[in-house]
């Protein structure tokens, strides 16, 4: 037996004006789960505590709660000392019990044909991973889209794809999915990352449904424009100024000793819209001993096409990009766009290693910049944090140059084709970001993704800067101070 302190969210709407937290000291056995700690509270301390559970073995999806802010199944997650247990971010009925039914009702059901041909083994294998969902609604509770716009939610989309694949179903699931908000998903990956069954809803369900929608001619017109642009120019956004690739030589040598060489995959946004930021990054790399090779013939990574289900042209892009780096014998390709990095890592079969610039810089270890008298908050790009698992490295860099104030990691609304396809949703999510930014009291916002930077910039009056730009400012300040001293 061991003792632990557990802090639990309590709220009885009939007697309490507002929720409060209560702390309990519980005794549980070795290896006890969160659920067992709740049982202990109910049996030994407070029989009035309400929570849901049934199977206690991860199969029914009744007991999902937030533990230390993350949705988990209470029956499967190990109890830890000091844990904070809250209900999912869904309408609360009492204590840890949330109202699940309205969300469960949104999940479409199979309408069988008269003749029901069994799905083939191949189709069964495609459907099976989608069917392992236990409808715990962890995904729904973290989905940013359905908080601001009509969207049936991640798990409803999962089942819609299953029905679309099942030969026994008679519904027009793809058209229904479009109606139910298929194009409102920002591909932020939050749903997948909290799924206890590890169902990759954005990649394996939503993007597939969008591809089926594309076959039916249901792709949003604005997404079609992007696809056309990629075909015609190799880039997913227009050029508005001299591009990055036009401003740099093919090889950038570092200022000092060469500590490493990377190929640089610039991506459409940094090339066409934010070349200044990419140039800042080059300076930081050169200062830290990185030789950068920049193949000119590189094109769009294809992410805007994959996320919107327009995959016909994808293989051409992939081949051109892979060839561009392989031809130069490059073994490490660096990305600085979170979207490109995630795509190269997860959607490509690359014959070389792909690293984000934050990984490169923390791996070599950077020259310390001067500290700037600024308070900054950091916006985690979804495709960096969840798409590539990069969370600590940006913080490690930022805290060397400014004071960092954290804010919750929530999608800004620019991804998944939402910024172009459903601008009102993108704006609503950015507004939520603005509010969170305000709360931190930060002077500037730092991020590490051109889509996030560009989008948040439009919705806050605080300066929004790339990590490398801030590092460069730190170096310039350091140089200035050094000069000052010398004078």
């Amino acid at each position: 037996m061991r003792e632990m302190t557990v802090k639990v969210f309590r709220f009885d709407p009939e007697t309490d004006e507002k929720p409060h937290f209560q702390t309990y000291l519980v005794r549980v056995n070795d290896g006890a789960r969160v659920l067992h700690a709740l049982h202990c509270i109910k049996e030994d301390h407070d029989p009035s505590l309400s929570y849901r559970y049934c199977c206690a073995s991860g199969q029914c999806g009744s007991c999902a709660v937030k533990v230390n802010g993350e949705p988990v199944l209470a029956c499967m997650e190990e109890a830890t000392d000091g844990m904070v247990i809250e209900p999912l971010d869904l309408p609360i009925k009492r204590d840890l019990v949330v109202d699940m039914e309205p969300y469960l009702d949104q999940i479409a059901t199979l309408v069988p044909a008269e003749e029901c041909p069994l799905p083939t083994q191949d189709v069964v294998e495609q459907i099976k991973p989608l069917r392992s969902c236990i409808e715990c609604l962890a995904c729904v509770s973290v989905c940013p889209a359905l908080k601001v716009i009509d969207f049936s939610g991640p798990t409803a989309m999962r089942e819609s794809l299953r029905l679309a694949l099942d030969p026994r179903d008679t519904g027009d699931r793809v058209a229904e999915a479009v109606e139910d908000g298929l194009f409102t998903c920002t591909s932020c990956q939050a749903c997948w990352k909290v799924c206890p069954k590890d169902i990759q809803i954005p990649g394996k369900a939503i993007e597939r449904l969008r591809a089926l929608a594309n076959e039916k001619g249901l792709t949003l017109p604005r997404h079609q424009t992007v696809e056309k642009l990629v075909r015609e120019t190799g880039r997913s956004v227009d050029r508005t100024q001299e591009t990055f690739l036009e401003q740099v030589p093919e090889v950038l040598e570092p200022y000092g000793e060469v500590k490493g060489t990377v190929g640089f995959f610039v991506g459409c946004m940094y090339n066409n819209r934010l070349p200044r930021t990419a140039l800042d990054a080059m300076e930081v790399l050169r200062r830290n001993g990185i030789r950068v090779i920049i193949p000119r013939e590189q094109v769009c990574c294809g992410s805007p096409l994959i996320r919107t289900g327009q995959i016909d042209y994808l293989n051409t892009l992939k081949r051109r990009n892979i060839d561009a780096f392989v031809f130069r014998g490059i073994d490490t390709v660096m990305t600085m766009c979170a979207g490109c990095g995630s795509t190269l890592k997860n959607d490509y079969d690359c014959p070389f290693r792909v690293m984000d610039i934050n990984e490169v810089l923390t791996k070599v270890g950077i020259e310390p910049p001067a500290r700037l008298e600024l308070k900054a908050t950091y916006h985690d790009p979804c495709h960096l944090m969840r798409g590539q698992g990069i969370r600590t490295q940006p913080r490690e860099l930022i805290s060397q140059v400014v004071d960092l104030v954290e804010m919750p990691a929530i999608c800004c609304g620019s991804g998944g084709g939402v910024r172009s396809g459903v601008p009102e949703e993108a704006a609503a999510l950015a507004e939520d970001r603005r509010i969170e930014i305000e709360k931190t009291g930060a002077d500037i916002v730092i991020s590490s993704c051109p889509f996030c930077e560009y989008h948040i910039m439009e919705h806050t009056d605080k300066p929004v800067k790339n990590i490398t730009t801030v590092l460069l400012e730190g170096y310039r300040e350091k140089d200035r101070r050094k000069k000052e001293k010398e004078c």
Partner: protein
Amino acid sequence: MRSFEVIDSHVLVIGSGGAGVRAAIEASFSGDTVMVSKTIAGKGGCTTMAEGGYNAVLRETDSCEDHFLDTLKGGAYLNDRELARILVNDAPGRIADLLCWGAVFDVTGECEVAQRPFGGQRFPRTCYAGDRTGHEMMMTLLDRLASTDVEVFNEIAIIDLLKDGDSVAGAVGLDEKGEIVIFRSDATVLATGGGSRIYDISTNSSSGTGDGFALGYRAGAELIDMEQVQFHPTGAVYPYDARGRLVTEAVRGEGGLLKNIEGERFMERYDPERMELSTRDVVARSIATEILEGRGTKNGGVYLDVTHLPRHQVETRLPVMLEQFLKFGVDIRDEPMEVAPTAHHIMGGLRISSGGETSVPGLYACGEVTGGVHGANRLGGNALADTQVFGRRAGESAGKARKRSISLDEGQIDLQERRLAAFYAGEVNPATVARSLQTAMWEGAGIFRTGSELEKTLEMINHLSTLNLKAANRCNLIECCTVQNMLTTASLVVRGAILRKESRGAHVRKDVTQAWDASNSPYRHTFLSLCDEGIETGVWE
């Protein structure tokens, strides 16, 4: 009497597992149907947790006669012959229904439903959806249910059946806020599942508290063979608080080996022919014996090993097991599981006809709450089939019940109100009583039993039943009622066990020596009702 919300229907189905939903679907073709669930429909009950599979004869090389004989042999010849015959005959049709409604079972390359071997069967006839077969069925049934007009009431517990004279005419429910809801119906179907939560170590979900046995018994129904409790051979032993969690028979079906601490495949000594795939009663006793005789692990289990199987097979056929054990720190691809017996399924229950009619007019039953189908030991894979076969039959019969005008018995509702009011004045935490009961049952009415221990256990149950349960608030009222149901169910199990003075199937009396084997036992069913109890005699043909 206060005024209550009264919900009228032709058919009332109590329970939302595989049998309940199947019954509701079928009943809905005949009239207004209401289904009441103690949980959120689809999440509670044990169907959704059932992992291994569904037995049905689907191949020409197999036969219903063989399935029948396997079921009888596995059931130690205590099965009601007619019910067992119906089970095997109807099972293929009912899986066809599920497939038609969209169930995603594993299929072969030839697009036939895949089948795997399970214990006690001469043919691999267990159909499966990986190791989440019951969950797949439940999802499918809920889809089908959504296409009917069945009205579903979630998170309402039934605390008593309503009587109109001698017949059942609905039920009294209690919602999550502790308010009484009256359900009035021409026909009422009990599909409340099992009750092995009366044991300290159990595979059952939170709803496996024997509510239906208790409700039926109090309404005057006759129950049979309640002593027949299946201990599943393989329940998890670690972590302690999750002890009893089911480790599916599919693990052995896929080739898993049982070994003791010395690495010996001990089944060789108990059933050399069928080894790990012997029937559950035999395997459970073998494991219990190994542990009792000191050849168990330090966590009190034996090893169940799949490390010799191809990793891919473990990953695709047993993904839930893999995931669960990984969560608890064991990668079953590389290390053996530790397992020990766990209370699983109650074979006994309400006596039913082939149409699911109980001995009380107006009351029907299906699924685990009924007795007779599985005799003294259920074959793995027969329970899911049972839910569908008898769920449909009970739903159909209930649907055909004649319409009648029902007068509400105010006295009975008053009684329930007083019962609830008494909980506010009670003194004992129901959770404490449940825990004492579970320990007493595990120790005194477990795998191995004796007359004197059973008597002692019954005394304990009777004592616990006299305690005044305390409801801390309105949300605790349901728990108090549930603990009363557990006490009643436990009493039925122990009284049945005292009545059956022989070892048969899952019921082992160490204090009885007998000169017969199961097939020519002089005893038939034990029976228990409010007015009578005993054991039937006579050798079956």
